[in-house]
Structure formats: structure tokens, C-alpha cells
């Protein structure tokens, strides 16, 4: 009996190992490329040199303003994620704690609207923001602020639902106790709901941030000068059609971009998995 059990376990390790090779192979290859020679042609499966030339290119070559892209992405995605989650939090609080006319209709309406993602109306968004650009260049196409504003259009979506569901689990008795003590709705929100929801908000914000970091379509339509590119637009423009020549610097850039996200992800893994089971999809 004992022997049979051992026999049955080894294949599990085998399957998992094969999957592991599949999932890690590209990652290892990229790490090797980042510290290897610049071209794709000269890279070997196991790097035989260890140089930092590729990182040097990213930090010094004026044609590849990688640090600017990094900063742009940080600014755009962080501010948009904070604003998105704030807006969603306010709305979720209203839907969770207030009873008002049209509440159910609004909730259903929001749900239906989610089926029409912004991606489907990019033509309309582009034309709208181009017209805005003609009058107010600071917030139209070509501007990062315009891009952030467009991102905020998606704030009242899935996150509002997720957070409303979470707020619903916070006992109402807490609010009522605060009310008895003379707290306003604003105070109840900041002193009671927010502290209890902080971990949840952190995860939602991280997922929003990753989703925004991944946006290529809107960012590429809005940001059309190299200096203003985000990482997604910049790295795509940098590498497309140039794999043979620029593979090394690109791999270095990919590594620098992915590393912070992977580390954050591992820290928040438990919460993210819980969020996933609730039905969240990576944006």
C-alpha cells in the first residue's frame, strides 16, 4: 500500500515540473538576455557573458528615454489608480449605505454598461478628445491629463461592485453607533468604513494600477511623442520590428518594469487570490 502511494505521487511532480518549465522558461531567457549581449542573434540559451551594457543603453541613450517612460507610467498609472479607486469607493459607499430612488436601476445600468468596454468606443473617445484638444490642448489628445481623465470614465465599473460587496459585509450597527454619537456621513466614512477597508482598497488599487500599466490602446492614441510615452507604448515602439538589434536593452527594460510588480504581487498574493475567486479578471 505504501509503495503504491509513492508511485502515485511522482507523476504529480513530473506534471508540475513540466508546467514550471513552460511558465519560467521565457522569464529565465529574458533575465539571460538582459545581462547578455545586445542582439537576439548572439544570445545563447545559457548566457556565457555577464555585462550591464543593456542597462547602460536604457539609462544613457537619448533615443530610448526609458527613465522618462518609467516616470510617465508611474505618474499616469498611480494618479489614475488612486482617483479611480477613490471614485469607486465613494460610489460604493453610497450604494451600500444609502437607499435612494433609482438605486437598483443605477446598479443594473452600471452592470450593463460594463459590457461595452471603453475599448469598443475608442473611435468616439478619440474624436471627442481630439475636439477637446482643439479648444483645450492641455486636457485633450496628446496630453497625459487627458488620458487620465479618460481612464476615470471606467472608475464606476467593476471596482464599485467589488467594494460595495465588501462594504455590505461591514456591520451597519457600527455606522448607527457613530450616528448616535453625532458623526456625519463623511465622518462615518473616513473614521469607520475606510480603516476597515484599507487592505481591500490596497489590493483593488494594485489591480487597477496593473490594469492601467497594461493599457496600450488608449495610451498609444493619446501620447504621440516619444517623451510622453508610457512603458507600454514606449517599449512597443522600441522593440517592434527591431528584435534582432534591440533585444538585450528591451529585455533589461522588461525586467526593470516587471520586477516591482512581481514583488508586490507576491506580497499581496493571498488577497489577490481571494479577489479572484470573487470573480475579478485581470484587466
Amino acid at each position: 500500500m505504501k509503495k503504491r502511494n509513492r508511485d502515485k505521487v511522482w507523476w504529480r511532480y513530473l506534471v508540475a515540473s513540466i508546467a514550471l518549465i513552460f511558465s519560467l522558461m521565457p522569464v529565465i531567457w529574458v533575465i539571460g538576455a538582459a545581462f547578455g549581449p545586445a542582439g537576439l542573434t548572439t544570445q545563447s540559451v545559457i548566457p556565457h557573458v555577464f555585462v550591464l551594457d543593456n542597462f547602460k543603453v536604457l539609462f544613457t541613450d537619448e533615443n530610448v528615454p526609458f527613465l522618462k517612460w518609467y516616470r510617465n507610467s508611474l505618474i499616469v498609472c498611480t494618479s489614475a489608480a488612486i482617483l479611480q479607486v477613490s471614485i469607486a469607493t465613494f460610489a460604493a459607499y453610497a450604494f451600500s449605505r444609502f437607499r435612494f430612488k433609482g438605486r437598483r436601476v443605477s446598479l443594473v445600468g452600471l452592470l450593463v454598461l460594463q459590457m461595452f468596454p471603453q475599448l469598443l468606443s475608442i473611435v468616439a473617445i478619440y474624436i471627442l478628445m481630439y475636439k477637446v484638444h482643439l479648444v483645450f490642448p492641455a486636457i485633450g489628445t496628446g496630453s497625459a491629463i487627458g488620458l487620465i481623465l479618460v481612464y476615470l470614465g471606467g472608475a464606476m465599473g467593476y471596482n464599485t461592485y467589488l467594494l460595495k460587496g465588501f462594504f455590505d459585509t461591514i456591520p451597519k450597527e457600527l455606522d448607527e453607533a457613530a450616528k448616535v454619537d453625532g458623526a456625519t456621513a463623511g465622518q462615518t466614512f473616513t473614521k469607520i468604513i475606510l480603516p476597515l477597508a484599507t487592505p481591500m482598497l490596497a489590493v483593488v488599487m494594485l489591480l487597477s494600477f496593473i490594469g492601467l500599466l497594461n493599457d496600450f490602446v488608449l495610451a498609444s492614441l493619446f501620447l504621440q511623442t516619444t517623451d510622453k510615452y508610457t512603458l507600454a507604448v514606449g517599449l512597443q515602439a522600441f522593440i517592434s520590428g527591431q528584435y534582432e538589434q534591440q533585444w538585450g536593452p528591451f529585455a533589461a527594460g522588461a525586467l526593470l518594469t516587471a520586477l516591482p510588480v512581481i514583488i508586490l504581487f507576491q506580497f499581496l498574493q493571498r488577497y489577490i487570490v481571494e479577489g479572484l475567486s470573487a470573480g475579478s479578471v485581470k484587466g
Partner: protein
Amino acid sequence: MNLKSITMRLLFLSAVNATSLWAAYTLFTIENWAPLIILLFATFLIDFIYFSPRTNASKWLIPGTIFLIIFQIYPVMYTAVTAFTNYSTGHSVSREEAIDGLLKQNVEPVENGDQYSFIAIHLGERKALFLTPANGGDSIIGDEKGVKSSNNSAIPDGWVQFSNEELKTPDIQKWLTALQIPLANGNFLQADSFTTAIENRSLIKFDAEKNQLIDVASGESLKEKGGNFYYLDGTRMEPGWKIWVGFTNFTDVVSNERIRGPFFRVLIWTFAYAILSVLTTFILGLTLALTLNNSRVKGQRVWRSLLIIPYAIPGFLSILVWAGLLNDDYGLMNRALGTHIPWLFDATWAKVSTLLVNLWLGFPYMFLVSTGALQSIPAELSEAAQMDGASNKVVFSRIKLPLLLVTMAPLLIGSFAYNFNNFGGIYLLTGGGPAQNDSDVAGATDILISYTYKLAFSSGKGAQYGLATAISIIIFFIVASVSALSFKRTKALENLN
């Protein structure tokens, strides 16, 4: 209400009002009325709601609602409206503007007409040409309104000649090319270079009474059809203008030979891509979940952390990296396999590649959610079945799998909807290519959303907004029907309390 919250509120409202006033002023100066009225109304509404002492939900909902209306609802409506127009490059202006353009373009030099050399001059904002006849004679000054004789061969007092640099600025060039100086005989003078002008006459004229364009030589009206005028010989005049076309964009998808072919090819591939993506990621994810979700496997947490690394990497990066791995000459895949497969340059292999990359990107998600679903199945059920003599196989197929599918169904449908519009997964890997046919906008791996994007922004044939928005609407109906099915099953709507 305490002092702090009142101060905060006042600060917030003054910022909103100041911004809105500044914007309103700008809109007022350019006489853009509709946005101005909406802006003032919205500002008034915000002031009203936030100054009102009553506690209500709208205070909390306003910020999101504003952005929702501007960047979701309005674009959806605009999309729906545009789908019924012929809006595209060449059909982007109003009829009046198109007629204006046509009148300017359709001119011809008069035989033995006057020829002039000119100097462009200006007096403050007023611009004019100082014209000297090529065959000698008195100079004249001409602008949009007409010509004035000048009894002097020098530029009149006060007027200043444009410098060469000024002449090259876009504003001046635009003015110079558009300038038609009417002459007494009905013809007009037009610049044909930076220094010379010739006498032109109109080939067409606008008859305001009939509201039609007339061919001057024959006096016949020009045919007008589908947002374009046609020359008497039947060739189309450009530009045309924006018109309502009813359901044409939608019916074209079915009946127009040139659009139907690529559209159905793309539609079928979109379904195949979405369904196969869900299936492959689900099967691999579930297999791994079943493999590792066993108490005898050591280090489950480590395995899990390592296996979900693809999920933690920003998707756009992974896809761009994969494009390098699949490089046919030097990529890892061909080197590791010792092959020379054109992963991204052959129609079939490119399709395989998009699915392979999507499998890599998506299986960790399925692995995570399947693990969660498996762990939520009560162990008693399998134990009871085993007690009754069911084999492991039967326990899996009759008990675990059905329960698993019930939990997973909404997630699978969500994943289908996501992949149906997975723009990045296609566009960043293959750019929709390889090209199928030189005349097609759609490449072999284009899905509907990337096809739409190309029609609107990068087809090389100009922007086809009308058709692109019509396809957006079609995508919406497909995804909405599938999602509606899922809502019905999961009864998500009933839980909205």
C-alpha cells in the same frame, strides 16, 4: 457639520467653479454654444448638490457619474449614432463645407488669360497681393473681396511685404492657396506659385435656389449621391460629406463582397480564438490544480508561487517578450526545438502562436480559481462516493467536475468575454498579421476588436469610422448576449440589494 469639513467643501467648490468659469470663458470666445451650456448646467448642479445641507447619496455619486457620462455613456451614444453614418476620411465634413472645398478646387486657367507676378503684403491683420501684369501695365491690389487698381508701381503706403520665412508658415500658406481674387468678368486670380498668379475660371458653380452644383460649361446639374457629387462623366468628386446611411454599414457586413469576406473570416477566428483560449487555459489550469491539490504533494505554496509568475508580469511585457521568443531566425522556440518554424509569419502558425502565448498568460489564473473551487468542494461527497465503491475516475467525472463547472461557469464566460476583445493579445504579438491579401485591412490573426481599430486608425486607406463603429456595435451585441446568458444562470442581478 464642523469647521474643517466646511472649509474643505468650500475649497473644493471654489476650485471646481474657477476651472469651470475659465473653461466657460474660452468656450464663449470661440462661440461654442452647446458645450458651454452643458458646462454651465453641470457646474450649477454640482454647486447646488454640494451646498445643500441635506445628506444624500448624490454627493457621493457625482464624481463617478460625471466621468461615466463623459467617457462611457457619451462615447457609447456617439458610437451608436456614428454607426449609421458614412463618417470616414473623405466624408468628414458637412455638405456646405464640402461644396466650399469643391468650388475652390474645380477651376481651370483661362486661355490667354491675365498673368501676374505678385508680392504678398499685409497691413496689420489685412492680407493682400500686390499684382504686376506679366505683359506690363498698371499694378493692382487684390484680396478676397476683389481688385483695386493702383496708379503706382510701388507697394502702397503702410503695407508691408511678407518675408520669405513668413510665407512658409502654415497659416500664410493656407491663406495663399485658398485665396481667390474675384475679377469683374466673373473669373478670378489665383496664385499658382509663390510669386505668380493666373486668371482662373470656375468649372462648377453653386445654385442656391436649386441647392445643387451646376456644371458651368453645359449648365447641367451635377449628380448627387451618397454624400458625394459626381462629374458629368460619372467620376466621384472629393471631398464628400457626412450623411446618414441607415443600416448600410450593417448590411454591408453581410452583402458587400469586399467587406463580407474579411469580416466573416475575422468573426470566425474571433470565436475560435476566444473559445480555444478559454478551453486551453482551463484544461491546463485544472490539470495543474488537480495535480497539486493533494496532501501528499510537498511544498504546495512554493509550487503555486512559482507557477503563477506569468500572471504577475504585466501582460503587455509578456506578449512583447514572446514575440521575441517566437522570432523565426533567432528566437528561443526555434533554437530549443531545433526547427525553423515561421511562428509569426505564416497564417496558421501565427494563429497557433497567439493561442500558445495566451495559454501561457492565462493558465495561472485558471489554476488559481480551479484550486479555489476544488478546495471548496466538501470532502464528504467524494468520501461517501468512494465508500459506495466509486473509482477515482467516477468520483471525478460524476461529482467533482460537475460541481466545479457550476462554480467556474461565470468565470469561464467572463474569460470568454475578455478574450473576445483581447486586443493586446493579438495586436502586440502579430499586429493582426500576417497579411492575408493586399486589399484586406484584416490580417490572418486579427480579431474583431483589432480589425475595428485598424479600420479606424491604421488601415492605410484612411479612417473608416462609420464601418468601425458598426462593428463595435456588433461586438457589443455578441458579448452582451453571451453575458446575459451568464447573468441569467448565475442570477447575479437578483443579488443586487
